[in-house]
């Protein structure tokens, strides 16, 4: 997947002015890593789409809600 631009990352950081310095960047890195992980391993050929499962998906949803405030 294509990288977020600096402007896109900065917009997320600016949306959380009360966050501890560096924490939103770290959360965004973790979020992006989880999203990218879905593409980095071979999805089952029997399934048309590959979906992260279990704890990883829960964490992804949690980070998405925190960073972007929507589902």
């Amino acid at each position, binding site marked *: 997947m294509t*990288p977020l631009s600096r402007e896109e990352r900065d917009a997320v950081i600016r949306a959380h002015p009360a966050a501890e310095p560096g924490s939103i960047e770290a959360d965004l890195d973790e979020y992006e890593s989880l999203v990218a992980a879905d593409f980095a391993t071979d999805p089952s050929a029997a399934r048309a789409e590959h979906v992260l499962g279990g704890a990883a998906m829960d964490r992804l949803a949690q980070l998405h809600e925190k960073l972007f405030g929507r589902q």
Partner: protein
Amino acid sequence: MPVDIQILQSGDSSRPRPYSILFAANPVLKQASGALIIDPVMTQQAAFNTCVRYAIDCLFGRLPAQAENFLADPAIGPRIRLISVFETGLPVSDPNSLVEERVFGGLVAPRRGRYAPYLARHGILADVAYAISASDDFRRASAYGTTDDTGRPGTPFRLDGQSLMHWHFPDISGTVAMHLTARSLTPAHEFGHAASSYNSGFVTDLYIPNTSPNFNVRIGRPIVNPFATYNGTPFAPDPTRDGLGYGAWNSYHPALVNATVPALMDNYTTQVNPLVCRHDTITRAFLRDRLIAKLGR
């Protein structure tokens, strides 16, 4: 159904199955809500054609001041077949939907299992297939790598003492979902993923802290030199990740061709002119060898 299939470059017609890159307008979009709609690209053929032309120029290193041009090698570029498909009037049904919107990441994503049946209806076999969408809300491209057909021939290579193969045929082609407005290095970046192999070496994103190794990323500290030995040649690591730095990351990358700018699979958007970015040393060698192996099939 009205279908406009263009052979934009015939490639090596002496081969029974020349290496082929396909660009299809996505007939039906699976929205984030799960609803299926006619993809808005279907009313924008001129813009689709512009997008395809840009993507081809980007892949072949023809954009002004573009540095990465390994596909332009006379031993590679002219032998690749390029095809576009724009088919209107298809039913709004799941098999006609090649692209889905994903809320997580804000992506358009390939529905990889649907590409081959859709293209087979037109007698097309692609090695890498792009589906172009004009989703209203999701513009970020994504790609799955190729699942190779390991039951057919390949060209052997060695990686860190392991015997592996550049398999000649795909079982599941590399698939890309890309927005109609995609520019910059997006087509070449996604090609890096899609043309690589889940069996023999996947080229992954370098702009995130990876937690698992892949062809172009290693995990752990200290950074080990060489990064890898490919076909007898040691490739150095990138100790500093050019000007971006690794920070607290535990992953590290191969040495760059141009050590002053990020790799094409890293965050090229940090550059005023992203087109100066190139593949790192070992990724470039690997993708080049993989394509040459396939071109000779």
